[in-house]
């Protein structure tokens, strides 16, 4: 039920998008992301057939860098 899966947007048509979920093509509603400019190539989280948020790889890289810093600082004597 709360299992949302990441998908890559292949094509946008109105309030639906064709997406790639781990190699499987399917359609998802993007009605809940209206106004967020969902576009081809974006990553989105899909839950029960609807996109609930965009996923940002920049943010992922940033938090990873932050955590590496924290770990480095924490492990120093």
């Amino acid at each position, binding site marked *: *039920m*709360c*299992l*949302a899966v*990441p998908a890559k947007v292949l094509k946008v048509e109105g309030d639906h998008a064709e997406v790639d979920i781990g190699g499987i093509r399917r359609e998802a*509603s993007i*009605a*809940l*992301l*209206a*106004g*967020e400019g969902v576009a081809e190539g974006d*990553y989105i*989280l899909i*839950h*029960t*057939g*609807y996109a*609930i*948020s*965009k*996923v*940002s*790889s920049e*943010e*992922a890289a*940033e*938090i*990873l860098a932050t*955590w*590496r810093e*924290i*770990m480095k600082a*924490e*492990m120093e004597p």
Partner: protein
Amino acid sequence: MFSALRDKELVKAAAERIAELSRGGTFRIMHVCGTHEWAITHSGIRDLLPGEVKVVAGPGCPVCVTPGNEIDAVAGLSMRGGVTITTFGDLLRVPGNATSLAGAKSRGGRVKVIYSIEDAIRLAREHGGEQYVHFSIGFETTAPMTAVEVVRGLPENMSVFSSHRLIPPAMEFLLQSCANIDGFICPGHVSTIIGAEPYRALAEKYRKPMVISGFEPLDVMMGVMNIVKQRVDGTYDAVNEYRRAVRDSGNRRAQEAMAEAFEARDSFWRGIGMIPKSGMGLRQKFEASDAVGRFGLKIEKEDRMPEGCSCGAVLKGEVGPKDCPLFGKGCTPEHPVGPCMVSSEGTCAIVYKYALPRQ
């Protein structure tokens, strides 16, 4: 895309640091999400953590907290001629007080499993002469879809039985009733919708740290580390560490749709009890879409767990699945007794599948 978040060396380093930080204390951290339980159990995170740090599952499985009397009411409706129930597959085998939807189906009830509420709308349009009732369950991750479609207008022969529940009121209920929660790992997907603000309010009020986490092993480890460190330092911030998917303000479009379609109502959580303002009922202006009114449904007051089942205590994090006398004996995923063993998101089913020694 995010394989670095499974970096074993970093996960191990974090575990070592948590062990150092937690020395001399005990920490009990709760999560409230079936996918977190899956991630934690599947990646063996509990085995990496020191004995002083316990991560326990709370009521993170919407199917498990759906009251038996509501299941009975909808199962009964499926037996009336000309009415078809649509719902998610997880709910099908969950026992109500008297029967399950699968049980009703085997006796001629009309129940269709769907993936998305859009499927239900399509079915209703294709079969105009029949009534379709969507048994709509789930937390803030599923409620917006129902809301957005109700607001747009359902087909005339379709209505909704709303059993949606809100997570922050349940977290507050547990903070009030269980003294020994040191902090929450907040549900990542629910948070994409509601954002960080509801947790800030709870963290402030109850002086407990909260971390919004993703679902990779490193996400969870860093969440645990953050909470332990905050407890040691005496701070209680709500932190968003899942910024790749969660905005602090959440999904505004989804929030607006929910606010328009639903009003918060005092609602019963199976195995837990009545939680103030924790359910979502359709507003008066959408009463034409409400199955309860359309079919004059009577919901019985009483709700029961199956006999001998500890699911209620499991949902509150008071006991683990292995503490239940039925676990793995009378109750398995193939022959489940209680809701926590039925749903793939239930704590008992996950622990049974991934955390028992292989024979």
